């Protein structure tokens, strides 16, 4: 009974993540690559994404805090963040990065600060949601069940 509830809860949770645009099809692609030989593949990729992104966000803060902002550097960091969010399927983060690069091109410092706030917000949101998702997966496995396949 409890396992059934856990699995239904998982289905609802992950469906909402797709529905609300937090995750896109690339995340499903990653799930499809996971198998018995590498059962933590998605978690490993997500962990790399979290670590990479924290570093990039810190770098971005530092770069924007300089007296004279090096917009090329800002753009390079955002480009990297866009790449890694795209690789994991973190759609909302990726979309903010796309807008961020346009603002960068206009060398609009205030605009860049706003984008940075937005991208931080989206990043921490998707990070927390993914952590919840992985926790739900662990609970299902601990209860002896298997994680529902969503494709």
């Amino acid at each position, binding site marked *: 009974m409890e396992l059934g509830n856990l699995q239904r809860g998982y289905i609802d949770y992950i469906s909402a993540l797709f529905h609300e645009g937090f995750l896109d099809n690339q995340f499903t*692609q990653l799930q499809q*690559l996971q198998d018995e030989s590498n059962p933590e*593949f998605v978690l490993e990729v997500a962990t*790399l994404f979290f670590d990479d992104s924290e570093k990039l966000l810190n770098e971005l803060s530092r770069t924007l805090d300089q007296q004279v902002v090096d917009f090329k550097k800002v753009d390079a960091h955002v*480009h990297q963040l866009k*790449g*890694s969010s795209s*690789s994991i399927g973190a759609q909302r983060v990726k979309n903010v990065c796309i807008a961020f690069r346009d603002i960068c091109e206009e060398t609009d410092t205030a605009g860049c600060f706003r984008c940075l706030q937005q991208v931080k917000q989206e990043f921490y949101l998707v990070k927390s949601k993914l952590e919840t998702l992985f926790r739900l997966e662990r609970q299902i496995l601990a209860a002896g069940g298997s994680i529902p396949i969503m494709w």
Partner: protein
Amino acid sequence: MAVEAEARFHVLAVDDSLMDRKLIEKLLKISSFHVTTVDSGSKALEFLGLSATASPEQSEIEVNLIITDYSMPGMTGYDLLKRIKGSSSFKDIPVVIMSAENVPSRINRCLEGGAEEFFLKPVRLSDLKKLRPHILKGKSKEGHLSQEESSEIDKITSRSISHDSSSICSKRKAMDEESAQERRRLRLSCGGLQYDLA
């Protein structure tokens, strides 16, 4: 008669992003390639034995395809491509370039520079299906093909539609123009199915 183990092709993947290296390695392994990953163009050249610091033993490394990111600090994927194509020992190794950015001039430049394919990131499993034909072509240039590999190339170049697809198509019912058009579309998409090289 001795049964030969299926030879696995060796792909060298180059990307400065750890995340992307992990991804491409997984995709390649799932596609049954033997994989080596490096994080820069210079490390790739070193691995191939093309750098000044390479030792003689390294020239025994066999690489059947190189897949590289375009935007890397120091040596870009394009720079690496030119170095490889400019080398007498490695110019026949097929090179594929990946990029997160869809810039037509960049894509053309790479293809004109000798790249076999240009993949947009994130790379998918279906993209990797395009790799084997290039590897086999590269090997045929070297004259190193086994009987199996030669017949694989014949299969690819004749591109015959498999029996499976025609049976799917023949299950269609109605005779009016619209469904006939649909059948034509379905037949075309069946014909475009990835041929199975496994």
